[in-house]
């Protein structure tokens, strides 16, 4: 091997390593962010509701890693992970969760409504399945404006039984819209097992509309990224919509206050947390591939913890909006 080839190979290897270390960092950022949300909430510093994304990090990060900054996403009530994966900063996220002025929505949206249009995030949504129309409309808009943007609609398995989803999937299929429907199947819609609410194979539903669908291990970020990438590339080049079923699990309750969780077995939770932690799965792969060692991963964690801690401090110190702002932004 001559030196030029080896150099190129090394550069490609470095790019590969940096890519996955970045993915690891982002997943860890979501994990640690959410742990702090939990603490802020239980410490009485965060009003409202907190639906944690812990355990599902590989879905948001794997999918968003396949997107450009100008691509669109729509998110859900469990949306912190999507926002961070698409590029939101932790300080303004925390500020919004606390209802503070520098928050992404100047304190008017809160946990369930964070929007960050600069990063293509058209907003989280408090209505289960409610954003399916918005994502599909963004895809129609991209097509009409002849950009090559794509839109991703994140939703949980609970939204599989909302009619709106099928209305807009039908239109996306008819009009070959660049939209990917990403189902985060975390097994429980609020407090009810999906087997009690959802008949048949979810993938049969897009299949009936002629929408290409795939199923992936939602705890394996590399698999999610590869599958999402295929759908994104097809959509970007005029191939129409896709549907990706990501099998994942909500490590915590429906929201922070869902403590006892009588609807599921402790052994089931412990099994997922022990064996199927997406952050640990990627960390193990990085070590196995010699792309990072324990010290390297610990260094990343230190940096992420410092970033999150600074974000919390920023939000705690930030001012609340002036009460007079209550009537601003009702109309454009």
């Amino acid at each position, binding site marked *: 091997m001559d030196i030029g080839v080896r150099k190129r190979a090394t550069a490609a290897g470095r790019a590969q390593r940096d890519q996955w270390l970045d993915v690891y960092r982002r997943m860890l950022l979501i994990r640690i962010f959410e742990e702090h949300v939990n603490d802020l909430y239980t410490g009485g510093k965060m009003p409202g509701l907190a639906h944690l994304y812990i355990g599902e990090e590989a879905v948001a990060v794997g999918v968003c890693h396949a997107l450009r900054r100008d691509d669109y996403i729509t998110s859900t009530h469990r949306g912190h992970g999507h926002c961070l994966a698409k590029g939101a900063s932790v300080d303004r996220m925390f500020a919004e969760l606390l209802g503070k002025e520098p928050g992404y929505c100047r304190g008017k949206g809160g946990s369930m409504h964070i929007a960050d249009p600069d990063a293509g995030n058209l907003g989280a949504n408090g209505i289960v399945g409610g954003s399916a129309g918005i994502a599909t409309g963004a895809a129609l808009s991209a097509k009409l404006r002849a950009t090559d943007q794509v839109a991703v609609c994140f939703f949980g398995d609970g939204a599989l039984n909302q009619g709106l989803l099928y209305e807009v999937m039908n*239109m996306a299929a008819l009009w070959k819209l660049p939209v990917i429907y990403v189902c985060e199947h975390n097994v429980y819609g609020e407090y009810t097992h999906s087997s009690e609410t959802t008949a048949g194979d979810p993938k049969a539903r897009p299949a009936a509309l002629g929408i290409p669908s795939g199923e992936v291990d939602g705890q394996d970020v590399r698999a999610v990224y590869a599958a999402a990438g295929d759908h994104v590339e097809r959509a970007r080049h005029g191939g129409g919509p896709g549907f990706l079923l990501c099998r994942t699990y909500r490590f915590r309750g429906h929201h922070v206050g869902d403590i006892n969780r009588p609807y599921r077995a402790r052994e089931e939770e412990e099994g997922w947390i022990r064996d199927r932690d997406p952050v640990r799965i990627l960390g193990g792969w990085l070590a196995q591939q010699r792309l990072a060692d324990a010290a390297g991963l610990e260094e990343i964690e230190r940096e992420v913890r410092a970033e999150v801690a600074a974000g919390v401090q920023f939000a705690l110190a930030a001012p609340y909006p002036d009460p007079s702002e209550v009537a601003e932004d009702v109309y454009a």
Partner: protein
Amino acid sequence: MREMTFGQAIREALAEEMRRDSRVIIIGEDVAEAGTVFKVLAGLVDEFGPERVIDTPISEAGITGVGVGAAMTGMRPVVDIMFGDFITLAMDQIVNQAAKVHYMSGGKLRVPMVVRTTLGATRRSAAQHSQSLHAWVSHIPGLKVALPSTPADAKGLLTTAIRDDNPVVFYEDKMMYQVKGPVPEGEYVIPFGVADIKRAGTDVTIVATSSMVYVALEAATLLEAAGISAEVVDPRTLYPLDTATLVRSVQKTGRAIVVDEGYMRYGITAEIAAVIADEAFDYLDAPVKRIGAADVPVPFSPVLEDRTVPTAHSVAAAATALCGPASASR
């Protein structure tokens, strides 16, 4: 000035705005080749093509949701909801999404979308194709609501609706599409929140919306014969509402009747009556009278349906009752 029908005026506003702004698209059921069931959009697809006049499946929630997403990302969709009754199917998209996106995002996102839909009974279409549900959307902060009564107002208000950066629900009385009137040529814009006095008078103010303006005008003619001078005020938009013009009229006449084709209870008439009572109480010689559709599902049989809607005679009778004793004491 040239005359055209209400339906033609709607079509002209859309065509002019679509020529002016390539972001304006029409999306709805049977809007392209069919030009809608009311034929209002006939021919637009020939000029603008199926990419901008988009026939959709029968999926009101989906159509509206797609409109919201397109509006948030650079388009200016005009969503067609064939019958106002069907807006119930799209309510989450209108009320929880379109109306709130701007506020919830702290002002960063906008939804410049128009939902065109219909109201009005007496088409013998029974309970699910005849309602006037404009009070529902008027209740929701974040939405604007327009309901023109004349061809000229239809053109001017629809142009404004399309150019507005907020979601606007635009109501057309399906019984008015053939009504003719003068319509200005070329660009014609009527600002929202400006009521129009359709007939000047001194004894009683009749506030009337949409096709009820014609009922009020006919009542005014009947009243004139009885020596009562009625002023007919058309708010033209329910939000924003031109309270100043309503109040000024009542300050002059001292009496007010509000006529609207929505259900009476908790309806538009109640809101406008309350505004007048609040802001012109000292000028009122009598309580504000409300006349709306009967609080029943709209029946099919013509003899029953005709009993449910306000008529010129019912409005004139109410005005006479309001003015009678006071007139006698003068």
